[in-house]
């Protein structure tokens, strides 16, 4: 087909209408905005390539070219999603793109020619249908944007000073602490879609407790003096980033404990500093990524991924753990990459493993620095440690 520029744009936008509608349905079902954001990026990338590249490069575009061009657009969309921080499950995002690509091919080869007699000789131009499609796509995106804007959670500012807790959050909101804002006695999150930002928590059974909710973001929080766990997550999906958890003096509590949320998608702990506690960061029956954290001076493991958990442990620094630096245990599957584990002491769990896989677990190790430990790595009780490059987010 020899597209005109207008034909390319009209065909792309018209084929985008069912995709953006599907994205809206998916967003409504998942209660997340990534499908709409991804769809908007798909359209933006496609239109940019149409104008800047395809129209100039292809006076005639054979049918087979749709395949490599589609792969190129997919790669660009995924890269932009990552750069823009669109948190989409990779498989679903690829499926959305592939579905949209397939629909666009069916429409270009069959649907549009049947709908408009002169489609081919008009170089893909659709006339009024093209204009209507542009209006429809724009309206859907605008409506989605307006809805997102209208549904933004209210922002609650926590004034500087000490606030007596426990503070229980029962609605979707963004809690932002002013400099010097401290909650004494813990924070309990009981609503989905809550963000807690820049708040210090002192004391409480759990510093911050998140249970039976999804979409929680803990950003820049600081926890100290918790009697049990610093950050305690049960049956909930969370993103914890840029946090500080001080558990020094607490020999049995966990710094960050994310457990039993296997069916709630990926959770994430990123950029946190955890000091003390029994395990610095631990997951049980969870799919979690543990990335770029600093864990030190724990009474047992630095990081443990256990009880059939799956996830990536990457770019972390673990110092002065007892027995095991990073532990992949109990039928878990762990990708352990680019971590530094040093000064692990002999302890109750072992002589001081940098990394240990145990009880039918599989750990994939790649480019970790484990030398400064009594035992760099090990696998026991029908477990396996492999050293092949696996898929990496890095």
């Amino acid at each position, binding site marked *: *087909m*020899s*597209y*005109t520029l207008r*034909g390319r744009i009209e065909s792309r936008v018209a084929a985008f209408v069912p995709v953006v509608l599907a994205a809206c349905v998916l967003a409504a079902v998942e209660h997340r905005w990534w499908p709409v954001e991804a769809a908007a990026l798909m359209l933006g990338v496609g239109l940019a390539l149409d104008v800047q590249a395809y129209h100039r490069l292809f*006076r*005639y575009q*054979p*049918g*087979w070219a749709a395949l490599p061009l589609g792969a190129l657009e997919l790669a660009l969309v995924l890269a932009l999603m990552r750069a823009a921080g669109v948190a989409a499950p990779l498989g679903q995002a690829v499926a959305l793109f592939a579905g949209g690509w397939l629909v666009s091919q069916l429409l270009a*080869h*069959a649907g549009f*020619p*049947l709908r408009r*007699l*002169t*489609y*081919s*000789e*008009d*170089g893909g*131009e659709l006339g009024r249908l093209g204009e209507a499609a542009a209006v429809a796509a724009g309206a859907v995106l605008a409506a989605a944007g307006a809805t997102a804007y209208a549904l933004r959670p209210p922002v609650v500012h926590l004034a500087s000073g000490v606030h007596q807790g426990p503070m229980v959050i029962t609605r979707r909101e963004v809690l932002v602490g002013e400099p010097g804002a401290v909650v004494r006695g813990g924070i309990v999150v009981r609503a989905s879609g809550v963000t807690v930002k820049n708040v210090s928590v002192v004391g409480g059974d759990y510093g911050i407790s998140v249970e039976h909710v999804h979409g929680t973001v803990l950003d820049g929080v600081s926890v100290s003096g918790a009697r049990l766990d610093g950050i305690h997550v049960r049956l909930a999906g969370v993103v914890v980033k840029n946090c500080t958890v001080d558990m020094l003096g607490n020999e049995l509590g966990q710094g960050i404990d994310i457990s039993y949320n296997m069916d709630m998608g990926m959770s994430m702990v990123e950029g946190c500093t955890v000091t003390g506690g029994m395990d610095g960061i631990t997951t049980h029956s969870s799919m979690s990524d543990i990335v770029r954290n600093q864990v030190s001076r724990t009474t047992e493991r630095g990081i443990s991924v256990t009880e059939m958990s799956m996830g990536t442990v990457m770019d972390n620094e673990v110092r002065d753990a007892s027995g095991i630096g990073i532990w992949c245990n109990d039928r878990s599957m762990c990708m352990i990459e680019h971590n530094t584990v040093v000064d692990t002491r002999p302890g109750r769990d072992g002589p001081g493993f940098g990394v240990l896989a145990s009880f039918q677990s599989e750990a994939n190790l790649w480019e970790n620095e484990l030398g400064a430990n009594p035992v760099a790595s090990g696998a026991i009780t029908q477990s396996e440690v492999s050293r092949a490059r696996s898929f990496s987010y890095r």
Partner: protein
Amino acid sequence: MQAAIVGSGLAGFTAYQTLRRALAPEEIAVFGAEDDPAATFRRHAAAIRQREMRSESDGHCLPTSFPGLAFSSAVRRRSARPLLGTLCDRFHPTVDEFLAHVGRLRDRSGWERSFRPAAVERIRAVDGGFELDGHGTFRHVLVATGHPGLNVPEELRGDPRAVHSYDAHDYAPSVTVVGAGLAAATEWLNALAAGSEVVSVRRREPLRRPLNVPREYFSRRGLDGFHRLGPGERSARLHALLAPSYPPGRAWDEPLATAMTEDRYRVEQSVNGSEQVICATGFVHGYAHDALLAGLVADHDLETVDGWIILDCDGAVPALTDETRTLALAGVAAQWAFPAADTLAGARYLAHGFLGRIRSCRTR
């Protein structure tokens, strides 16, 4: 009666299929000598022993490009091969597949109810339309009379050895083929396959391209620029675009290369002493060779350039077309509007334009 098509060949037939989207068979009259729309094509294809169409999946007579012949071939053969072939522009329907397609369309479209076995020799503009040589007055008329005749070079007329490639013929032991287009290339291979020694005589080296004209000239991408050209430039561009060509590919090259090494194929500048001279020189060019078009130009003082009647972008004759009536050309005579007008895709393009005129007619 709304519309008339003068000419019952493939261009008229394709236009008829498009008109049937809006009109009943009783509202369309088709005038022609033969009720089989593929009769002329069938004779020509048989004469040069053509087995595959040069056109691709959309070389058919349906009003929409989908479903193309690749799709129907895939369904019939229960194979994805034709579809994969068309994605790579390598699907060419066989002549038999194409003729079967025409036959099916003819049976189901009401063609027989619209066909009138009559030759129209004169078209006269009258109030409310066009009077067709005593066959009635029609508001919208499409002239699709096809190629006006076979072209035999002046110096070979009357030569008993000469035969035109589109006339039935066998091959002598030594054959000279005059021409450089698809028919000539087909004749080279046919004669070589028949065991003949072949001499190619041509004025220029043939172009190698998949279709009659570059692909962008099948859509607005190339046509917009073409339509903006002034008459002189457009005529020159048409001469360049319509230069003889045949498709690239090993199927053409390898037999010729083998025959050259065996001294059975060579290129010469003039006709030599071969026992047979095949004129693969196509058709005569220009409206003046078509009595109906020549009369139309003379009667209505139509504007012409280098043998072409000046047309609007959709094939309509501007001097005889307004909001109430349409006179348009299709087929080879409409190359002024669409350089590949003598192809099936061209016939469809012009049919779409004609239907558009009828739909926008104020008095319809």
